[in-house]
C-alpha cells in the first residue's frame, strides 16, 4: 500500500533480544531520561506573584471611558448593543439635568449600562462600533464568581476611575489600551 505521508514507519516485529527481555537496560535508560529532567528549567509561572504578559491585541473586560475632565463619554446611543453579536449589552438612556455637566459629557447619558459577561464573547465589536470612544476592552478578565448574577456587570463595575480625583487608578485601569483623552476633542 502506498504510504500517505513520508513520516510512516514500519513496526519492528522482530523478537526481543536478551537485553530487551531483561527489562533492565530499558528501565535504566528511562530512569536516565527522567533524572535529566531534574535539571531542566521549569516552565511554571507562579501565578499571583508573577503574571504572564498578554498579547498586544488581547481583548479582556470592558471599561467605560471618561474624558479628560472626568466626564462619562457614553451617550447611550445603543450602537454597541446593536453591534453585539451575543446580545450581552443593555442600557437605559437618561437626559442630563441642570448641574450635571461635570458628570456627563453630552446631554444624554446611560443611566443603566449592563454587560452580561457570561454572554459576552469578547469580540470587541462594541469597541469598534462606539462613535464616542466610550467603551474599550482592557487587559483584565472577569474573575470567578459564585452565582450568575455576579457576572452581570453594571456601571459601577465598568466605569474607569476618575482621572481628576484618582489619576493613578485611572492609569492602571487604562493600561495603555484606552485612548488617553486628548484635550479639545
Amino acid at each position: 500500500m502506498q504510504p500517505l505521508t513520508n513520516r510512516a514507519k514500519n513496526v519492528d516485529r522482530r523478537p526481543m533480544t536478551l537485553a530487551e527481555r531483561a527489562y533492565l537496560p530499558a528501565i535504566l535508560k528511562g530512569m536516565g531520561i527522567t533524572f535529566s529532567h531534574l535539571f531542566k528549567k521549569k516552565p511554571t509561572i507562579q501565578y499571583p506573584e508573577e503574571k504572564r504578559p498578554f498579547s498586544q491585541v488581547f481583548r479582556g473586560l470592558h471599561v467605560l471611558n471618561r474624558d479628560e475632565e472626568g466626564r462619562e463619554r457614553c451617550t447611550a446611543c445603543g450602537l454597541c448593543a446593536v453591534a453585539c453579536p451575543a446580545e450581552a449589552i443593555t442600557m437605559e438612556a437618561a437626559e442630563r439635568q441642570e448641574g450635571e455637566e461635570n458628570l456627563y459629557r453630552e446631554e444624554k447619558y446611560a443611566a443603566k449600562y449592563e454587560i452580561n459577561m457570561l454572554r459576552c464573547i469578547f469580540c470587541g465589536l462594541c469597541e469598534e462600533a462606539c462613535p464616542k470612544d466610550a467603551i474599550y476592552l482592557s487587559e483584565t478578565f472577569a474573575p470567578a464568581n459564585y452565582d450568575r448574577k455576579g457576572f452581570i456587570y453594571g456601571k459601577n463595575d465598568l466605569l474607569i476611575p476618575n482621572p481628576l480625583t484618582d489619576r493613578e487608578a485611572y492609569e492602571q485601569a487604562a493600561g495603555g489600551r484606552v485612548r488617553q483623552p486628548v484635550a479639545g476633542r
Partner: protein
Amino acid sequence: MISTLLAMQMDWALVLEKFLLIVVVVSVSLGFAMYSTYAERKVAAALQDRSGPNRFGWFGLLQPVADAIKLFSKEDIIPNKANKVLFVMGPGLAMLAALMTSAVIPWGDKIVLGGREISLQIADLNIGMLYVFAVVALGVYGVMIGGWSSNNKFSLLAAIRGASQNISYELAMGLSLIALLFVTGSLSLKDIVVGQQTNGWNILYQPLGFLIFIVCAFAECNRTPFDLPEAENELNFGYHQEYSSMKLGFYLFAEYINMFISSVIMATLYFGGYDIPFFNEAASSLHPNILALMGFGALMAKTVFFVFVFMWVRWTIPRFRYDQLMNLGWKSLIPLALFNMLITGAVVLYLQNGWPKF
C-alpha cells in the same frame, strides 16, 4: 519469687531505655513517612518539570500538616454493609505491620550515657531476618482485611491481587536472602552490619541478590511498577476504595512507612547499615556518641537515597500488567534467585573446604 522481682527491679533502667527507644524510633518512622509524602510530590514535580507544593510554609514544607488536617476533618464513613470490626481493624493492622519491622533494625552503634552503654537497636534478635519476614507477611492482612470487609467488589479484586502479588514476591525475596545468609552466616541484623564493617558491603558479594531483593521490595510495598492493588484506572482506587478520613490516611501512611522500612532494610542488608564508607570506626578516636550519631546519619543518607530511588522509579516506569507481574515473579525472579543461591552456596563451600575430592 522475690529474687525474680529483685531481678526485674534491676531491669527498670533497661525497660525505660527500650521504651524511650521505641518511642523515638516510631516517631522518627512516622515523621519520615510524613515528609516522604511531601518528598514524593516534590520529586514527582521535579521529574516532570513542575514545582510541586510551594505555598504552605517555606517551599511548601508545611504541606504534610495541611494534608493531615484535611484527612482528620473529613467525614469518617463506614459503609452500611461492611463488616465493621474488620473494617476498622484493617488500617490499624496495616500500620502495625509497617511499624513493627523497625524493632530489629540496628539504627546505629551504641551510645554511652552516664557510664551506661545503650544499644541503638530495640531488640537484637538472633533470628532478626526471619522476624522481618514474618512481619512483612503480616502486612498482607491489612490489605486483605481492608479489601474484604468493605464489601465492594473492586476492593475485593484489588485485595486479592495485592495478596497474591505479595505472596508471590515474598518467595523470590526469601530466596535472595538465603544467598545473603550464606555470605553473612548470621540471621541477626546487628551481626550482618558488623560483618559488613570488616568485610566490605554485601552488595559486592551479592549484586544479583540485591537486584532481586529491590525488585521484590518494590512489589511488597505495592509501589509502581507493581502497584496493581491500587490501580486507579482499573479498580477505581484499590483495596482502600471505601475508606475515608484518617482510616484512608493510615493506609496511605502505612505505604510510606513500608517504603521507609524497606529502604532501611536494603541499606542494612546490602549497603553496610550504619557503616560509614571509607572510614574505620573501630580505629577512630572519636567519642562513641559522636560515632553513633555519624553512623545514624550514614544510615539515614542511604535510606534517603533508596526512598528517592523508589520515587524515581515510580515516575519513570508504567505499571505491569497482572500476567506480566506473575510471569516476572514466578518465571524470572524465582529461577534467578535459585541460581544465585546455588552459585553462592557453591562458592562459599569452595572457600571453606577447597575443591572437593571425589
